[in-house]
Every structure is written in C-alpha cells, then in structure tokens.
C-alpha cells in the first residue's frame, strides 16, 4: 500500500539526492551544493592575492644617448606597477626619455615612446614633464622594459620601475 510516508520519503530522496550526484544548478540539493562549491573554487582561482606577491623597485640612471635594459624577466609572472622617468635639464640642449615595454612577447608601446623630457634647450625657465606609465599591467611569462636617453648631446635620464612577482 502506497501511503503518505512512502510519498514523503520519495519526495525527500528526489529533492535531497545522493552524495554522489554530479554538480548541477538544476539537480538535487546535493547536486546544487556541489555546483556552488565548484563556482566558489572557480571564483577563488581568479582572485589575485596581492598580499602574497613580492614587490620590487628599481632606480636607474641612463647615460645620454644610451639605451638600458631596466628590467627583463623571463619564466616569471606578476604585474608591472609603474614606470616613471625624469629628464635632467642640460645647459644647451633638450633632454628626453623614451620607454619600450614588451609583455609576453608583444610590443605594448609601439617601439620607443617618449614619456618624459625638458621644455627648453637651456636652464632658464625650463620645466621637466613626465607622463609615466601606470599599472597594474599583467605579465604571464615575460616582460622587458628598456629606457632610453634620446639625445646624445644632452643630459642623462633617471628612472623608477615598480613591479611585483607572483
């Protein structure tokens, strides 16, 4: 005889399901819990844990008319946090600084791009401009940053690069 207890048990079995039910958003309660756990794990895998990164700061000056490898990382991942440059004013010439950034093998700056310089060819009333590059910019395997003091007959440039590694 199929009574109320059997109907109730059948309903509970169907709704709660078994521990072995595959994760599903439309299945039993066990399946739904499995689905939530899978989603939580997926979201957690996409959250960047900044507190576990290692920060680095590079200070570097680059001689007039020279190109320097400010940073070249291979087989590593992390974030470029910023690149700033300062161009020293020469007595008789403009100074400017250009940067080239390649991330995971892709040129991101279109070769060397000017990011800092001085406004005059002498010291009278000269100002230094700086547009810099602000991150975070993700690199998954490699990053190369080169700084250049463009004018060989001018002055040097100073650089600050900040980054972190996973």
């Amino acid at each position, binding site marked *: 005889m199929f009574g109320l207890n059997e109907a109730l048990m059948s309903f509970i079995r169907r709704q709660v399901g078994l521990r072995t039910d595959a994760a599903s958003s439309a299945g039993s309660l066990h399946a739904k819990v499995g689905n939530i756990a899978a989603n939580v794990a997926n979201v957690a895998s996409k959250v960047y844990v900044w507190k576990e990164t290692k920060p680095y700061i590079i200070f*570097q000056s680059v001689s007039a008319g*020279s190109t*320097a*490898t400010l940073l070249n990382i291979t*087989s590593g991942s992390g974030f470029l946090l910023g690149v700033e440059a300062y161009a020293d004013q020469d007595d*008789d010439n403009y100074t400017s600084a250009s940067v080239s950034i390649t991330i995971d093998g892709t040129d991101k700056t279109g070769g060397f791009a000017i990011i800092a310089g001085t406004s005059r060819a002498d010291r009278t009333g000269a100002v230094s401009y700086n547009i810099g590059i602000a991150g975070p910019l993700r690199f998954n395997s490699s990053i190369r940053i080169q700084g250049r003091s463009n004018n060989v*007959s001018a002055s040097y440039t100073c650089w600050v690069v900040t980054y972190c590694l996973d």
Partner: protein
Amino acid sequence: MVELVEVGHEVLKREILDSGTVIDTHYCLRYSISLEAAKTEAAVGESVNISIEVKDWQGNYVADKDSVTIGVRNEQIGNIEEEILIENGIGTFEFVSETPGIFKIRPFEPNYQKNEVVINVT
C-alpha cells in the same frame, strides 16, 4: 644566484630565483669614454692637450674602436663636432680657441658611459 653578464652594449645583473624566474636589470654600460684635460683654464690661442681613453667596464683598453666623435659646445660658437682617431683605446687632441668663453667638451657617442670636461678660455 646573482651574476653579471655582458649583453650587447650593456652589462646586466642577472638574478635567478628558486622558482626558475630570471630577472635581468641594467648594471652598467659595457664601454666608457673618458676625457681628461691637461688644464681647465687657458688663455686665448693657448693649446690644451686633451686625452681620450676608451675602456671596458673592467678597466681594459678597447682595441676595436678606431675613432670617437667629440663635441665642443660654446654659447657664442654653438656646437662643433670632430672625429678623433683612437688607437688601442687611447687618443689625444689639442683644443685651441681664438675667442674667450666657456667650452664644454664631451664625446657624442651613443651607448657609452662618458664624461665632460669644461675649459674656461680668457
């Protein structure tokens, strides 16, 4: 592990982390050109001997560079460039000015560490 490696015109400081990540940063330029003037004050028409040394970052003379472009700058005269012959990393030239003023002399060579000498002609 940290080591210094020569790459092109640079010397890089290379750090290899336990994870296998390799970090290269600029250490210094590979070559330098240094000027040294026999005196920094001279009279109009007086000759000043200026020596040139081309060395690598470890202090060895560079034999395979045969000339250096030198720039002389003065407010009244402007910029003058002159190519000076070098032999086994050593060269020399005479500076003479027929007008008074401050003259700044430096190598115009990209990707070399370099210095400037200033001569006051009175």
